[in-house]
């Protein structure tokens, strides 16, 4: 029973992270019908910008809550800006090209970030830029406390992370379904050219969607970096792909679907790896992806759209 609960806790904490990243995939897919391959790497950039900010503010010497919040929101802003820039320069020029063209570009952007961050440093300092391939330690903004109710190990980091992630998801839900911007976003997602005719500034909506998704990825990265404190330029690869699986599982383009998908994937990984095939952890997501696409290609909450002939 203890083991079961422990897996539940671990699964939820991984799952919420997947969910946060998956939201970025799903929103961008919604408005652009593009799989933003570079999304996992935006998540990585989020972790690194957090690291630079933390070092700059001296979090490791004198941690404080204020600095932690500054690091948190600072990296969200950095990543939101990065997302907007990527969209503006890499995807927007290709919006009317075949979708494959944009997908290939996205793969290019992803690799550029991954390998660009592994280049030899051009600046000096405690953490040079680019940081190079060696893993870095993320400073702890507050002391770690472990609790063990009923023998289940939970740290204060896990709790904060879970709370923040859930809070952000509620916030997003509110933005998407209760605000003017959310309405515009859903309109663009439904039919961007008609939305444009209705006076919606499609480009601005798309930019903001990227900003929102990338910001969530940065938040996810910091929540992860807090509790599992090594980061490296390839750290976005696996979570990125898995979050994509989560988005597909929930029905890509569907916001609540991405959340459910993330949680389901996190729990599935934790339980399958914990009870049966520990070394196959990374394969579970792909097995799940292939099963979903076979059995229900539109995902849990998605709807199949027939092609008009």
């Amino acid at each position, binding site marked *: 029973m203890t083991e079961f609960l422990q897996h539940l806790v671990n699964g939820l904490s991984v799952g919420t992270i997947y969910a946060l990243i998956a939201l970025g995939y799903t929103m961008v897919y919604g408005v652009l019908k*593009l*799989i933003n391959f570079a999304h996992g790497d935006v998540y990585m950039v989020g972790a690194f910008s957090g690291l630079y900010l933390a070092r700059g503010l001296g979090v490791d010497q004198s941690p404080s809550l204020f600095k932690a919040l500054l690091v948190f929101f600072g990296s969200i802003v950095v990543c939101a800006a990065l997302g907007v820039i990527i969209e503006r320069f*890499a995807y927007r*020029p*290709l919006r009317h*090209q*075949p*979708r*494959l*063209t*944009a*997908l*290939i*570009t996205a*793969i*290019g*952007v*992803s*690799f*550029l970030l*991954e*390998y*660009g961050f*592994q*280049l*030899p440093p051009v600046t000096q300092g405690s953490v040079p830029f680019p940081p190079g391939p060696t893993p870095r330690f993320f400073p702890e903004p507050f002391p770690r406390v472990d609790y063990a109710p009923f023998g289940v190990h939970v740290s204060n980091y896990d709790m904060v992370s879970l709370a923040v992630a859930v809070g952000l998801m509620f916030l997003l839900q509110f933005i998407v379904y209760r605000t003017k911007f959310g309405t515009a976003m859903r309109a663009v997602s439904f039919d961007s050219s008609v939305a444009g005719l209705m006076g919606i500034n499609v480009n601005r909506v798309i930019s903001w969607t990227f900003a929102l998704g990338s910001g969530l990825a940065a938040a996810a990265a910091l929540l992860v970096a807090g509790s599992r404190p090594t980061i490296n330029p390839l750290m976005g690869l696996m979570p990125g*792909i898995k979050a*994509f*699986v989560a988005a*597909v599982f929930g029905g890509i383009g569907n916001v609540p679907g991405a959340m459910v998908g993330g949680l389901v994937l996190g729990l599935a990984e934790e339980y399958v790896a914990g009870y049966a095939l520990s*070394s*196959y952890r*990374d*394969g579970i*997501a*792909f*097995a799940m*992806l*292939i099963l979903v*696409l*076979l059995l229900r*290609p539109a995902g849990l909450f998605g709807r199949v759209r027939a*092609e008009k*002939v």
Partner: protein
Amino acid sequence: MEQVKLALRSALPFLIALPVLWGVSEVLRYYEFTSFQYILMMAFIDVILAVSLNVINGFTGQFSIGHAGFMAIGAYTAAKITLAARGLEIIGLPPGISDQVIFLLALLAGMCTASIAGFLVGMPSLRLRGDYLAIVTLGFNEIIRVVIENTSFLGQATGLSGLPRRTTLVWVGMGAMATILMARRLVGSTHGRALLAIREDEVAAEAMGVNTTGYKVRAFVISAAFAGLAGGLLVHLIQLCTPRSFTFVKSIEVVVMVVLGGMGSITGSVIAAFVLRFGVEALREAQQYRMVLYSMLLIVLMLTRPTGLFGTREIWDWLPRLRRNRAEGGAR
């Protein structure tokens, strides 16, 4: 008599290539251009990979980014066979010849297993549109890697070492030749036109009696078989078979070649494979910049010239005699 002439004509490119390749490799050996020969062999392997991927990505208009997975399957099959057959001799054949025959059998076995994998991946992927398919092939690539790393029979993460060096310039040259001929004869045949029709308009192709799913699976099977061949050749060149050679970074490298050359152009794939391989070797000191350059190349190409260097054109489009030949589907 007519039959013999036809058979000769169909095998002619191989009959010419064999002595030429042998001659080149002897000359290179005599002057001890070992590293040049090595790079040349790697380039030929890249040609096999790029041209075979072009069958899926260029001709059929699907998008696979998991080519290295098929490569791995072919490589491990071939490696296992040559390792098991070490010290074995086929009765009645001199040792040198016997080794070559075993190697050939190992490569063919690798092609078979890879094409079975191609079938298995192709089947469920049929219903998926471009971008989903891309992710599934990538996922398949990763699953292969995870499985290999967890299978002691396949040497786990360390891989299989102590492979005999069987790959020569003649082998890779003939492999590349076979791949190019396969692609060319395919695209000039009615089957190839069915693939092109799928690329152009899947709904219309289906309405014109083309079994689109069947042809997509066939494209995967053929393409995977040749990727398996490339894998078998590669591991018997570097004498080591590890999962690290077949990560999806390798798959992306092949995609870059196809995209650079032009999706749908065999000529483009061949040239891009050579350019990138020799370019990489020229930048050997700058290895760490390689992937950055690849990624920038991809982005810039897509933004400025999404058709690649050649688009769907071929070198033989400019050669009148060959062009007629192609238009006739090889028929006179």
